[in-house]
């Protein structure tokens, strides 16, 4: 779990209880704390910009199963299932 056991985690402070990104409503912002997944999954999400310490914002929900998320200057569409493994605070 990148961000929980590595030094990359250090800039992110657990000021609030970590919660999955899938629980944020459109318009809400938070900071990435860690990605909870296997090696390949975590690497993929980090490559998309979900690096611990980075600010993310949920823009809108094109349908109940997915969200458009702004992360590191790009807008990315992801399923709620995937976002439930990205923890923010």
């Amino acid at each position, binding site marked *: 779990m990148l961000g929980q056991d590595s030094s990359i985690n250090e800039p992110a402070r657990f000021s609030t209880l970590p919660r999955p990104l899938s629980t944020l409503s459109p318009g809400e912002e938070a900071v990435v704390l860690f990605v909870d997944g296997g090696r*390949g999954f975590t690497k993929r999400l980090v*490559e998309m910009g979900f690096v611990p310490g980075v600010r993310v914002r949920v823009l809108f929900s094109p349908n109940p199963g997915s969200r458009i998320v702004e992360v*590191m200057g790009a807008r990315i569409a992801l399923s709620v299932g995937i976002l439930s493994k990205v923890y923010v605070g």
Partner: protein
Amino acid sequence: MSKREILVGLIGNPNVGKSSVFNRLTGAKQRIGNWPGKTVEKKEGWFRHRGFSVHVVDLPGVYSLSAISIDEAIARDFIVEEKPDVVVDIVDASNLERNLYLVLQLIELEANLVIALNKIDLAQSMGFEVDHEALSRELSIPVVPTIATKGYGIDELKDAIISSFENPQPPKPISYGEDVEQAISELVEAFRSDAELSKYPLRWLAIMCLERDQTVASLIKKSSIYDKVKEVLGFER
């Protein structure tokens, strides 16, 4: 006159201005086709500069070269297999942080890199002033500021492509610390003895191997030195 055709790959994250740069470089001399066996569009173009004929291949827009998506696989295979003389990475100056990840991957692929630092007008309007000379120094890669939509910097980019072709400067490898470097050098040693593997950049192969990259893993499984690799990876964890 000797044959002086330069093969250039154009790469960058999505929406950085790749098509704009491609059109400015090649003008009307373009051809659109498909990548062999794929439905992904392949754009090629040509231009002449300082007596050189330059063949430009527009690669798909990608955030990384992990080869998970078809676009990434196309971009990566082109760089690894075709070995273009120069790779131009279009970097969005208004979003440097995200764009630097692809730069890092291209450095590891040992591509002969030129960076086009595009959208400097947009960056400026957002209050960013990117010190392109410092960036170039830190990375040991030529950096050319451009505004593709206005054609600004395109001649300088052409100059930089020719200079990098004539005088390639290997970028500084990124060091990952003692433990990882130890594993990397053991893997590189093992790869060196395999004829098939030694056509790839060995350091890159080693790093991909440590990342458990699927494409590289299947390459190594087929190779003669699989047992040795398993041994090294045993130390790693």
